């Protein structure tokens, strides 16, 4: 029995808690039930796409945490929620 082919999306975003400053820049990220401070901001860009069906509007940030982890985060501008891309 084989069934239908299974497809797994790569680089699927997952929801994440982020503390921001007044400008909306990430300052701390929740990692394993504790807050880790953002040590530095590396990149920031914005995408607006697929306006013709379900609009996608994201504000991306590449940040380095205090523990050395490099994360790509985005804020969904339609819902206001934060996601971790990888």
């Amino acid at each position, binding site marked *: 029995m*084989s069934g239908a*082919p*299974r*497809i*797994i*999306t*790569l*680089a*699927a*975003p997952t929801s994440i808690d982020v503390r921001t400053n007044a400008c909306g820049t990430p300052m701390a990220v929740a990692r394993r039930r504790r807050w880790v401070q953002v040590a530095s901001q590396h990149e920031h860009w914005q*995408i607006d*796409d*697929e306006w013709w069906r379900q609009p*996608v509007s*994201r504000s991306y940030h590449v940040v380095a945490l205090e523990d050395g982890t490099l994360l790509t985060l985005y804020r969904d501008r339609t819902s206001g929620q934060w996601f971790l*891309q*990888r």
Partner: protein
Amino acid sequence: MHSLALCLWLPTFELRLELVRAPELDGTSVALLSPETHARRTLWQVCERAWHAGVRPGQGLAQAIALCPSLTLLEPDPTHYDTAREEVLEALGTLSPVIQPDEERGKIFLGMSGLGRLHGSAQNQIHLVLQRLLDVLPPALVATTRAGMAPGTFGAWVAAVRARPGQPCVVADDPAELARFLEHCPVTSLPVDPATIERLERLGLSTLGQVARLPEGAMVAQFGAQGRDARAWARGERMDPVRPRFRPRPIRVTLDLPAPAGQLMVLNAALRRLLDRGLASPARRGRSIHTFRLIAQLEHKGSWGLEIVLRQPSAHAESLAFALRSKLELAPPPRAVTSLTLEFTGFAGAAQQNDLFSRDERSGRAATGHQLAGGKVPAALRDAVRELKLRLGHSPLYRVVELDPWSRIPERRHALLNFDPTDA
């Protein structure tokens, strides 16, 4: 429980074996050349007569001959020495189940704990061991064997050095007795690097007793971890047990060359045939090769060998041949070769992962481009998936497929698609 050890030491074992083969040289000045053929040849072992003339191991040939013009130089025959030692180990294995060969062929440790009830007193046990040696070695060689028995391999080695041929040295299986025995032994018997020995001597420490009396902190401060070990050995506190050797049955294939050959091209062709035969051996099936060695019988007597330890075990003839070729080019046999023997001595588990995408296979990925997606997959991969499906109920393999590689949204670019080549 103490680990009672017996050390058998046959100094200049290899040279003595040569003298057994050529008894007419006994009583003359003889030296054995070092086995390294790619470097400048030096002396490896020298007989007592040559020693008195000033000839020493490690000397260059010109210097040695200048010191002793009548010196006879012998080419080493490592295969002969290895065979002789294997016979010794086999013979001793009938007396003690725990045997630890040393890097030096003439030094062997035997675990003797618990053998007293079987073979009697320590002297009796040593007598039995030497008797067993007579089954495989000529009496002249056994007569020069030194035997030392003590708790731990270090104590046994020092005892063997202190012993005289025919007069074994026995230290009772008691730490206090061992400490008393070691007290007056020289620091040169410590198994630490020569620089440490030299520093100990320069500090005025010539006996193990003097080292034993120093505080541990002082030894560690001066010599680090080696200092701690040296002190523990000197005090008789460290008694390393005899470690039994792990020796899987080797797979051996031999090829006699129709005519002596020295050209690398001919040797490489012969090696390829040997590898194919060795890998096809039923005893090898399901295992990959980790360590193997090549032994060559040379024209006009003598042998030559090299050992290869692979970083990653392999069962591919091409990988093994590549390693062999590389070493052969660096250090080729010194003379023409009459026969080649390939021995697989170390094994690891089956290296299936590498076989899955075999380049040799016609239906392999590399041979046919991107046919994995087209349905034609290597047979080894299909078999592996079939086996996994039997265990898990589904194929746990996926392949990466492009969805929209230029999309600005990362999760839209690629995906994993379940991969099951056995469905077709």
